């Protein structure tokens, strides 16, 4: 399914003609063509092949095939229960896969942990835990520090830098339950920054945050992308998708569509993603109308 979409959307005939004619293609088009093409699947920052995840007997994700383009900001969009969070968790081996293969830069996840940063949903942890904002950000560096070793001053400074980058340098010492929801989300983001990963997987970092936090987070996500990192973000607000993300992955148990936002985030694809049943009914009505000839509906 993925390949149909990438072929149809990645190389529209007009583009190819333009190149053949020797005219200088606009740079944006060239980048888009490269990024969506399946020429280098092995080097993709994240490559998911035939992944299926099931809880008990019920499949949550079915035959997911997806290559994330390097240096892109990807929005993962789909209705509730579409398997968006599960996709991130399965990719990170936090939930077991029924089948399929996941590669980060051509290697399985356990070899590439250091390259992958994860921002879970805010509700996933106990905010009354006796730690400060700085402690939480430092945890992003534990993998780097290594077993048995204490946290050194250099790591502390790196964590403070990350906090400053999200605008929370003044609140480093504060216990985390005394932060607002938006500040807590920024602490999570700072922790991911402190990890210095090349691929980021973020689960609804913009869920119920204030406008200032949303702007700060989006600005940082763009910075990360501009530094050549790949950022995949589960996002729930359809209105802001075209503004925030240059690629989208439309998900509803299966991958419905993926590619550059401008071409993929269409009414047609959204209907397929969100209104599966509606589409079926529409198709049925269409077929009935054709077969019945003159019979009025």
């Amino acid at each position, binding site marked *: 399914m993925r390949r149909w979409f990438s072929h149809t959307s990645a190389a529209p005939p007009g583009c190819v003609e333009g190149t053949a004619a020797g005219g200088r293609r606009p740079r944006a088009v060239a980048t888009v063509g490269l990024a969506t093409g399946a020429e280098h699947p092995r080097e993709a920052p994240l490559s998911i092949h035939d992944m299926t995840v099931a809880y008990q007997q019920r499949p949550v994700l079915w035959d997911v095939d997806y290559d994330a383009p390097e240096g892109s900001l990807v929005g993962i969009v789909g209705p509730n229960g579409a398997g968006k969070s599960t996709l991130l968790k399965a990719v990170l081996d936090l939930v077991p896969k029924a089948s399929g293969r996941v590669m980060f830069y051509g290697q399985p996840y356990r070899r590439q942990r250091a390259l992958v940063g*994860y921002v879970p949903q805010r509700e996933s942890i*106990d905010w009354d835990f*006796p*730690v400060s904002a700085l402690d939480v950000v430092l*945890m*992003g560096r534990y993998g780097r520090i290594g077993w048995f070793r204490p946290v050194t001053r250099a790591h502390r400074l790196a964590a403070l830098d990350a906090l400053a980058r999200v605008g929370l340098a003044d609140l480093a010492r504060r216990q985390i339950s005394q932060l607002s929801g938006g500040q807590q989300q920024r602490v999570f983001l700072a922790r991911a920054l402190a990890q210095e990963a090349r691929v980021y997987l973020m689960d609804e970092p913009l869920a119920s945050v204030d406008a200032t936090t949303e702007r700060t987070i989006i600005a940082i996500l763009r910075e990360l992308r501009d530094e050549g990192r790949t950022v995949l973000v589960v996002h729930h607000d359809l209105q802001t998708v075209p503004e925030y993300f240059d690629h989208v992955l439309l998900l509803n148990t299966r991958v419905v569509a993926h590619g550059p936002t401008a071409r993929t985030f269409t009414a047609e694809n959204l209907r397929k993603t969100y209104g599966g049943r509606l589409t079926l009914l529409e198709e049925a009505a269409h077929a009935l109308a054709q077969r019945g000839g003159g019979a009025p509906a």
Partner: protein
Amino acid sequence: MSGLLALSWQRMDTEIVVIAALGAVACALLGNFLVLRRMSLLGDAISHAVLPGLAAAFLLTGSRDSLPMLIGAAIVGVATAVLSEWIHRAGKVDPGAAMGIVFATLFALGLILIRRAADHVDIDPDCVLYGAIELAPLYREQVLGVELPRAAIVLGAVLLIDAAAVLLLYKELKISTFDPALATTQGIPAAAMHYLLTALVAITTVAAFESVGSILVIAMLIVPPAAAYLLTDRLGVMIVLSLVIAALSALGGHAGALVVPGWLGFAGVSTYSASMMAVCAGGLFALAALLGPRHGVLSKLAGRLALARGIAREDALLLLYRLEEAGAAPPASPAAMLRARHGIGPLAAHLALVQLRMRGLVRPGEGRLRLTPSGRTAAAELLRAHRLWETYLDQHLDVPRDHLHRPAERLEHVTDAGLRGRLAADLGHPAQDPQGKPIPVSGRPDAP
């Protein structure tokens, strides 16, 4: 009374306290992570579930030596955690119930094993439950030429193991407890850390059982960490405080066991030490719950009272200012007026007026309280906030004119200079409120 205690205190009492403190500190150290994981009762479950491990260790080795017992306990302890987790996941049973299923079954299995195969062993249920800490100093062994109570040696060794594990793996335990998913993505297997913790809990409870009894073990796993949690919001500090509370409970409990029976007319009887230590820990928890700086009942109460006093002071200032503004004489009894207009009790009103005098905001003159110049400035700012809010509510929110006063009265107490400035700017710096009363200008030059 303390003289009595000093007279009856012997070397044996010191040894009892040291043994109990070693056990209590070892339990409390691990208990921090259980309490923070919201799995406090895992210690209770493990302390029961290890029984078949002890029986099996005895059957295999034919001895009651500590080492095989501790190894058997550690294996069954981890099995308890693994089985509970498995039942919880596979059977859709909540974690507490899953733990209950496992530990009840294992405990019963252990009883059968002991009855069937090792009936002659003296594992006395009473002894396990209540412990026999008063007798612990009697069993002694030579270590490096020094004769020490056996319990102190075993508990000391276990405490060393626990302390080494927590010190070496501090950040790994911290992240696995706080955010298991993040730990796992960083290459620190949270599940394995959890099983390590349960193994440590198992050997610690078994080691402490014999000497201090399971009641004290369960109390020390939960109560000191829970009390410390109320006193701080840093994990490191919490752990240290929990250890101090555990050691204090051991000391206080034994001293209490020596003294309290005397009060009740049982002079000379002192077989309550373990229970008294648990009660003592409970008492320290109650103190922490009352006096804790952030979560404590008293500090919350104090915070509310301070807020109420601040509001009463501001109400008193405004009252005097409004009377001045209306050209009325200062009231003979401002306290009575505060009560009539704001429902402030006589004591609170009196306190508020005294505090205003101490701050130099009001001063008695000709037998009446009057505003000082600085009091007048402060009151003017409050009234400014009040009337700006009335204007705002009228203009922006269409609040009826006769309903403006109440909300403005609440808002005036929480409006700082910055907000006043923004309100004024938003409203175009009005000179009058909706009722036509003048809005005082900010920062009068007559301020001191």
